[in-house]
């Protein structure tokens, strides 16, 4: 028996066509792949409309072969609101970073969640502005250094890390809020399951779902990929506890 016969055959990915431009060790590639796999598994690729953010994942549509639009910084939830309401048969996904969603786009995400818009949000939290070169984000940890908090984030000066899942969990309308992480295989698997659940919620017309994904930024954190994932595991999860906040 040839060894190759023992290797299970997986279907060719249709949605995710990788080789991304992201920095070595960045979590975006993994997350794109997970999202693509789940879209393939659910057989919804031809119905998906993806709203890209402004940030490192601004070119996500190069790697995910679905229809989509590139929105202004932070505005994806407003764009997605109109698309989903005008085309309810589409599966509408926003993919947003923490600068995009938790800073400049806070208003849009809160109100979209509060209206219970029927789309799915993939929120990537890596505690920093990546594309612009490592500035402080609302999610930057206390004491964490960035180019705009060079001596570390001080609470008396910059306030505290903003917890989006907890914040949205005060609203009535959302049906599913979960925080997951990409720091090891076990958690990557959990992330995949969370994305699937969030998309199923939309397919079944349940309501607003958001998956917050803790990720890394080795380049701007000035760490090796390995060190960066350890930071996610040991430091970020303390401030941003993992788990399901809402599941209705």
């Amino acid at each position: 028996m040839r060894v190759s016969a023992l290797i299970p055959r997986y279907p060719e990915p249709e949605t995710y066509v990788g080789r991304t431009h992201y920095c070595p060790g960045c979590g975006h590639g993994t997350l794109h792949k997970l999202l693509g796999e789940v879209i393939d598994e659910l057989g919804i690729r031809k119905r998906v409309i993806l709203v890209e953010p402004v940030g490192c994942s601004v070119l996500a549509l190069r790697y995910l072969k679905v229809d989509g639009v590139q929105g202004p910084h932070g505005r994806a939830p407003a764009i997605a609101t109109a698309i989903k309401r005008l085309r309810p048969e589409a599966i509408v996904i926003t993919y947003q970073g923490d600068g995009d969603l938790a800073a400049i786009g806070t208003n849009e995400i809160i109100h979209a969640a509060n209206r219970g818009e029927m789309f799915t949000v993939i929120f990537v939290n890596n505690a920093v502005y990546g594309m612009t070169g490592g500035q402080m984000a609302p999610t930057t940890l206390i004491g964490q250094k960035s180019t705009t908090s060079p001596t570390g984030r001080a609470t008396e000066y910059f306030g505290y890390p903003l917890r989006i899942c907890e914040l949205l969990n005060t609203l009535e309308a959302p049906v599913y809020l979960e925080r997951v992480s990409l720091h090891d295989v076990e958690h990557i698997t959990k992330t995949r399951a969370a994305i699937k659940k969030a998309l199923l919620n939309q397919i079944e017309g349940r309501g607003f779902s958001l998956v917050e994904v803790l990720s890394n930024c080795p380049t701007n954190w000035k760490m090796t990929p390995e060190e960066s994932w350890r930071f996610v595991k040991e430091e970020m999860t303390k401030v941003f506890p993992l788990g399901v906040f809402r599941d209705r």
Partner: protein
Amino acid sequence: MSRLYMKGNEAVVEGALRAGVEGFFGYPITPASEIIETFAEKYFADREREKRGEKPLYPKFRVFMQMESEIASINAVMGGAAAGCRVMTASSSPGISLKQEGISYIAACELPCVIVNIMRGGPGLGSIQPEQGDYFQAVKGGGHGDYKLIVFAPNSVQEMAEHTMLLFNLTDKYRNPGMLLADGYLGQMKESMEFPEVPIEEYDKPWAITGMGEREKQNTIEFLFLTPEPMVEAKKRLLEKYKKIEANEVRYEAYKVDDAKILVTAFGTPSRVAKAAVDLAREKGIKVGLVRPITLWPFPYKIYRDLVTHQIDRVLVVELSFGQFVEDVRLGVEGKAEVKLYPRFGGIVPTEEEVLEKIMELA
């Protein structure tokens, strides 16, 4: 054809509904609020009809949204337009300032939509009385980067409806955003109108993001370039489109200009006052005519050039601002006539006697 009696803001809604608007996204602001309110009334009346098992009056009008901000409104318009639907928003000056980022993105991505600006006094919070101080913002840019909006300047309630309908056609035709630029007077004024016959043109939108469906190729709506060369090509395409619009879509009204020596020019509400003043001046034997631009971009430069080349040597510009529109008039006149500005600002519309006085100063 039936005669109707309604407010300018209500006529915008009526025109949009007849043009087959599919989504309206807005935020309240005086003096434009009747637009969002009238859309709400029409939309929810249709939902009530459906509950009673009746057919909706406006089956195409599927989405009405009062958004959380002007910014969210214009971005919802971007989403709806990207999805291939006829969509619009309406606001007034401070709200339109907030929308500028979105307008720039919409222009860059060549998304057709209609934006209504019922201008109030500015800068800042200003006043709720009419001004025309958003002229530059509407016709010269407003948001960042090179782009153009197709800008219509109605001067009656009837035109509020008619131009809204025309804008839906033209914005779809050219894949370009358009603006209805009216002053607060036109939004608030009630007058009798006949509903204009504007044929509804429907355009295929193979570029729209609808979900790939039967398509093999993904549709993406983006305007970001990591290297200059493709951006040069994309911007050339935009520029070519703008030239085409400039060549084909200029609209203006010329009144009693055939033998005129003096020209009065104005748009929007002041153009009605100016027209009446031209009639008063004619009674006094002054040879005066009026040019009223209907499109502010593309601007009717040529009619000014033609008139000053052959007969007119004095031009009176009446506008409700320090003097913005006058700059385009001067570009049209090319220094071949004396251009005098009569600016009224702060929310007061001049009377016809006041404009007549200015004409007589030139005569």
